[in-house]
C-alpha cells in the first residue's frame, strides 16, 4: 500500500511541477489564488502573540536562565558577541567570529559551544538528531535559539563581516550557494537563484537579490504549520540539503555557517520579525 502511495506521490510531483511551469498562460489564475492565500496568511499572522512558536520562545527563555547540564550552570554567562549574558540585539549581529572558539558561529553553533563548554553537555548527544520530526516540538537548543532571535526583534541584520575569518566564511558561503552538486546536480541557486520561481504553491525567494533576502530572512526561526513546530535556520538548511539529496548537514558545521553567513549578508538591513509563520 505504501509503495503505491509513493508512486502516486511521485506522479503527482511530476504533474504539479509541469502545471507550475506553464507560467504565462496561468498568470491570472495564479494571481487570484495568491490573493486568496494571502487572506489565509494574514489571518495566521494577524496576532503575533498567538503564534505557537511563542510557546517555544517562552520555553527557550526558561532554558536560558535555568541551571542545567553536568556543571549545573545556566547559559546566562554565554557570550553571544556583545559580552557574557548580553542578549538584546546579539542575534542581529550574528554570525561572527568568536576568539574563544577561534571560529565564526551562528546563533545555534554558538549555543552548542556554550552548552558544551559552560554547561558540560555532551557534544555528540547534542548533535544527534538535533532537529524535531513532524509533530514534535523543537528541541531545547532550537527553543533557546528562537528566544535569542526574538530578543533581536525590530532590529536589522547588521553583522559586519569585518574579521578576516568572517570574510573567508562569507566567501565560502557564496561559493557554496552557487555550487552544483549531488545526484540531482542542484545548487541553492537552482531554486533560489531567480525571481518568481515556485515549487507547487510555495514561492521561492531569490536569495542573491538583497531586496528579496531582506524580506524573508528575518522570519526565521518560524512556526511551520505543515509540521506543527518551529524550524530554525540550521534546520532549514538541513532540510534543503535533504531535499537536494545531499549528505546530512551537521548542526553548526562549517557549511551551514557559511551558507547562513551568505544569506545574512544578502539580508543586511532587513528587519528581524520573529517568529515567522510558514506553511
Amino acid at each position, binding site marked *: 500500500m505504501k509503495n503505491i502511495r509513493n508512486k502516486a506521490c511521485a506522479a503527482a510531483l511530476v504533474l504539479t511541477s509541469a502545471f507550475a511551469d506553464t507560467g504565462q498562460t496561468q498568470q491570472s489564475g495564479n494571481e487570484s489564488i495568491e490573493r486568496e492565500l494571502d487572506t489565509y496568511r494574514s489571518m495566521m499572522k494577524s496576532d503575533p502573540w*498567538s503564534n505557537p512558536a511563542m510557546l517555544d520562545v517562552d520555553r527557550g527563555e526558561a532554558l536560558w536562565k535555568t541551571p542545567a547540564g553536568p556543571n549545573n550552570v545556566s547559559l546566562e554567562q554565554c557570550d553571544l558577541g556583545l559580552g557574557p549574558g548580553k542578549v538584546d540585539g546579539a542575534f542581529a549581529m550574528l554570525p561572527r567570529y568568536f576568539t574563544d572558539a577561534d571560529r565564526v558561529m551562528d546563533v545555534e553553533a554558538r549555543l552548542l559551544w556554550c552548552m558544551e563548554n559552560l554547561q558540560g553537555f555532551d557534544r555528540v548527544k547534542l548533535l544527534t538528531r538535533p532537529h524535531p520530526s513532524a509533530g514534535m516540538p523543537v528541541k531545547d537548543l532550537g527553543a533557546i535559539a528562537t528566544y535569542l532571535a526574538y530578543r533581536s526583534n525590530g532590529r536589522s541584520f547588521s553583522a559586519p563581516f569585518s574579521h578576516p575569518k568572517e570574510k573567508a566564511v562569507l566567501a565560502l558561503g557564496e561559493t557554496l550557494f552557487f555550487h552544483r552538486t549531488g545526484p540531482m546536480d542542484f545548487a541553492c541557486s537552482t531554486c533560489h537563484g531567480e525571481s518568481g520561481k515556485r515549487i507547487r504553491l510555495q514561492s521561492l525567494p531569490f536569495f542573491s537579490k538583497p531586496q528579496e533576502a531582506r524580506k524573508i530572512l528575518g522570519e526565521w526561526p518560524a512556526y511551520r504549520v505543515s509540521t506543527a513546530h518551529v524550524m530554525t535556520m540550521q534546520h532549514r538548511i538541513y532540510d534543503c540539503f535533504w531535499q537536494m539529496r545531499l549528505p546530512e548537514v551537521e548542526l553548526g558545521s562549517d557549511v551551514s555557517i557559511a551558507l547562513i553567513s551568505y544569506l545574512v549578508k544578502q539580508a543586511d538591513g532587513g528587519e528581524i520579525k520573529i517568529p515567522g509563520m510558514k506553511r
Partner: protein
Amino acid sequence: MSAKPRIRLPDSVTIGEIIEIKTLMAHPMETGARRNADGTLVPRLLLHTFEAKFQGKEVFRAALHTGTAANPFISFFMKVPGPGEFEFIWIEDGGGRTIERKTLKTT
C-alpha cells in the same frame, strides 16, 4: 503536559467592561490517525477540555476534538463583574491537567 501555556489578559480593566481573553497551549493534539516514518500509527492524545473559571464559577468551556489544530489557540470574552481570580484548566486524554491562575485587577 509540561509546557507553560500563554494567557493574555488586558492590563487594566473597568468593572462592566467586556474583555477578550486569549490562551495558547502547547499540545500535539494527536488524532490517532497520523503515521510515524516506519508506518506505525501515532497513538491518539488530545487535549479534550479547556475550562475558564472566574471567582470559582465557570465562565466558558471548550470541548476539543480531532478537528482542532495542534497547539490550541482559544480566544473568548467575558464581562468583568469586579476584580478576582481566574482559573484556567486544560485536561488531556488520560486525565493530565494543567492549571494556571491569573489575577484580574480593576481600576
